[in-house]
């Protein structure tokens, strides 16, 4: 019975892992250096019909290599040669050869040595800081006393360290590998999976010759890195090039070699994976911002009214207007954009220069005539995102995007289609001092579901009144102007402005919305004299 118990499955597994059973195979991906390790291994694992445990993944020159011990996995890996496509749509070659036992397997540290290493590592671990100090590990007296030589350039040693970290230190924040004569980081690359929490890494005073070594650990979200005292530091002409080269591997880096880094020239733009949008951008003074908001407010109040002809005065005599529809002929949902499609001046499809010329509306009369033909609309000013992206003393160039609803005239209560639009205006003050539109390019498409849902979702105001006399001079003026422009009484104007925190634009927008929805009570329009 005892003999039988010795052959429990666990025992068999252990034998397999020890490399006592089965042949080894070396898997090679030529030009594997192009690929991120995690991406490559996940792709291979998901295509391979037999699950396998890769051993000693590493890059040599342009190759990526690893080992497997299972003959059936090796054969399955052979089958996926040229079956995986990379991001550039290239097929990835995967070569399989028989191999000797991989280095880290035949040189695995004996259990007693692993135990001693674990003790040494725990001595060097600062629990409060979650920091592991492995500097000059080769000369650690405890290890030398037990005749253990840890050379971190050796894959088996690095693997032993990483295994110990994996088992005993779950939330490592800081790792010091200073003065370990490291000349490559192949063995360290597994740390991305083993200790993804690391924020500080000290690699100073090693033998790293090229910044490209950092490619092997670039998945780490490092905030602080020490590299001084490596030959690679001398490969850069100056400090800024050095900083920007290292930042490419670790975009979140805020300290390098003990010095605080200036914020990247373009803060908040690229988090590498996340490109954070700002709601609006004005690189001009506040007065321009107000000017543009006033313009948009007035323009769209008229545009959404029954009287689009009044826009005539907004355009320069020789202004240009054109319209495009991001039209995909395979998309049936766009067939409802037919009112716009006839004017679609998409040069991607429209090659004829005469047609291109015809569809460019030139002169203000022609422009307003075509604007009048478009369906009646109601724009949601709250959805607007505005970029002022060029301006001089005599011109303003800005883009606005947002959503609008088509108003169905016959049955006013029913919901029209919600569209998304982007419009670029160029305004010029030219010879006479008043600003007018000289260029106008509009793009109209269907709004996404989220846009449709979030649009026009302003709660109905509940009227409360307060006396005009408590208002500031400026507020009183706003109330009067609002009353004149909207045609509602002073009290209702004040109410509307108050409900919208004295934001004139917002108030006007809310008013326009309720007006079209018929939610403004009749009495509001009665002027109290």
């Amino acid at each position: 019975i005892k003999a039988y118990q010795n052959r429990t499955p666990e025992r068999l597994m252990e034998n397999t892992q020890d490399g006592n059973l089965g042949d080894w195979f070396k898997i090679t991906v030529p030009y594997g250096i192009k690929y991120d390790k995690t991406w490559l291994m996940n792709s291979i694992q998901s295509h391979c019909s037999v699950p396998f445990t890769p051993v000693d993944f590493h890059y040599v020159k342009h190759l990526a290599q690893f080992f497997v011990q299972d003959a059936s996995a090796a054969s399955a890996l052979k089958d996926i040669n040229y079956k995986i496509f990379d991001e550039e749509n290239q097929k990835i070659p995967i070569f399989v050869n028989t191999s000797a036992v991989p280095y880290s397997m035949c040189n695995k540290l004996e259990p007693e040595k692993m135990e001693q290493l674990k003790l040494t590592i725990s001595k060097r671990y600062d629990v409060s800081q979650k920091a592991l100090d492995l500097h000059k590990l080769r000369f650690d007296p405890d290890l030398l006393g037990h005749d253990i030589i840890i050379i971190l350039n050796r894959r088996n040693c690095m693997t032993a360290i990483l295994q110990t970290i994996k088992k005993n230190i779950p939330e490592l924040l800081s790792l010091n590998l200073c003065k370990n004569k490291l000349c490559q980081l192949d063995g360290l690359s597994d740390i991305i999976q083993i200790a993804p929490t690391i924020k500080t890494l000290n690699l100073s005073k090693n033998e790293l010759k090229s910044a490209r070594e950092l490619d092997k650990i670039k998945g780490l979200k490092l905030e602080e890195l020490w590299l001084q005292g490596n030959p690679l530091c001398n490969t850069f002409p100056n400090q800024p090039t050095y900083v920007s080269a290292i930042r490419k591997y670790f975009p979140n880096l805020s300290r390098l070699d003990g010095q605080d880094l200036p914020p990247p020239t373009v803060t908040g733009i690229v988090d590498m994976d996340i490109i954070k949008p700002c709601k609006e951008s004005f690189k001009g003074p506040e007065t321009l911002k107000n000017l543009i908001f006033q313009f948009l407010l007035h323009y769209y109040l008229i545009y959404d009214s029954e009287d689009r002809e009044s826009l005539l005065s907004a355009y320069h005599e020789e202004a240009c207007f054109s319209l495009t529809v991001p039209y995909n002929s395979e998309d049936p949902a766009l067939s409802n954009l037919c009112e716009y499609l006839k004017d679609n001046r998409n040069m991607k499809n429209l090659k004829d220069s005469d047609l291109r010329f015809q569809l460019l509306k030139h002169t203000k009369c022609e422009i307003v005539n075509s604007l009048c033909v478009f369906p009646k609309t109601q724009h949601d000013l709250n959805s607007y995102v505005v970029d002022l992206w060029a301006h001089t003393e005599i011109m303003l160039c800005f883009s606005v995007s947002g959503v609008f609803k088509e108003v169905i005239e016959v049955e006013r209560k029913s919901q029209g289609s919600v569209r998304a639009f982007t419009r670029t205006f160029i305004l010029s003050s030219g010879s006479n001092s008043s600003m007018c539109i000289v260029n106008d390019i509009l793009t109209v498409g269907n709004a996404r579901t989220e846009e449709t849902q979030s649009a026009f979702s302003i709660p109905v105001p509940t009227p409360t009144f307060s006396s005009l006399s408590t208002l500031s001079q400026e507020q009183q003026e706003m109330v009067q102007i609002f009353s004149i422009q909207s045609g509602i009484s002073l009290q209702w104007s004040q109410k509307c402005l108050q409900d919208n925190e004295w934001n004139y634009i917002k108030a006007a927008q809310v008013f326009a919305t309720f007006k079209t929805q018929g939610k403004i009570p009749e009495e509001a329009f009665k002027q109290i004299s």
Partner: protein
Amino acid sequence: MASVDFKTYVDQACRAAEEFVNVYYTTMDKRRRLLSRLYMGTATLVWNGNAVSGQESLSEFFEMLPSSEFQINVVDCQPVHDEATPSQTTVLVVICGTVKFEGNKQRDFNQNFLLTAQASPSNTVWKIASDCFRFQDWAS
């Protein structure tokens, strides 16, 4: 812009825009390092609301962007009225399409350019004076 000449302006703008769009997005996807050369020294980019100015900053910015695959669906352009940019031939170009930045999902975008003509002895070179980029999520 005398109206007799207007078609000439429009044709010129269209040719410039078409050629530019081809060059710009190929350079963006395949030769990113050269992209900032398409900008004037003083050019400004407003990228999702964040402004980047000057060729050096632009080149750093583009280096930081993950590699891209742009697909262009819509191109439109207009000659900018002479009154807005006196004695400086300028074209407004609008582009819509989709872009896949490595490690990000494919997204729709909208991009606007102001191109300005730089006359050289042999030919006319169009450079970017201003650029405005935004992710736009049109119905897909």
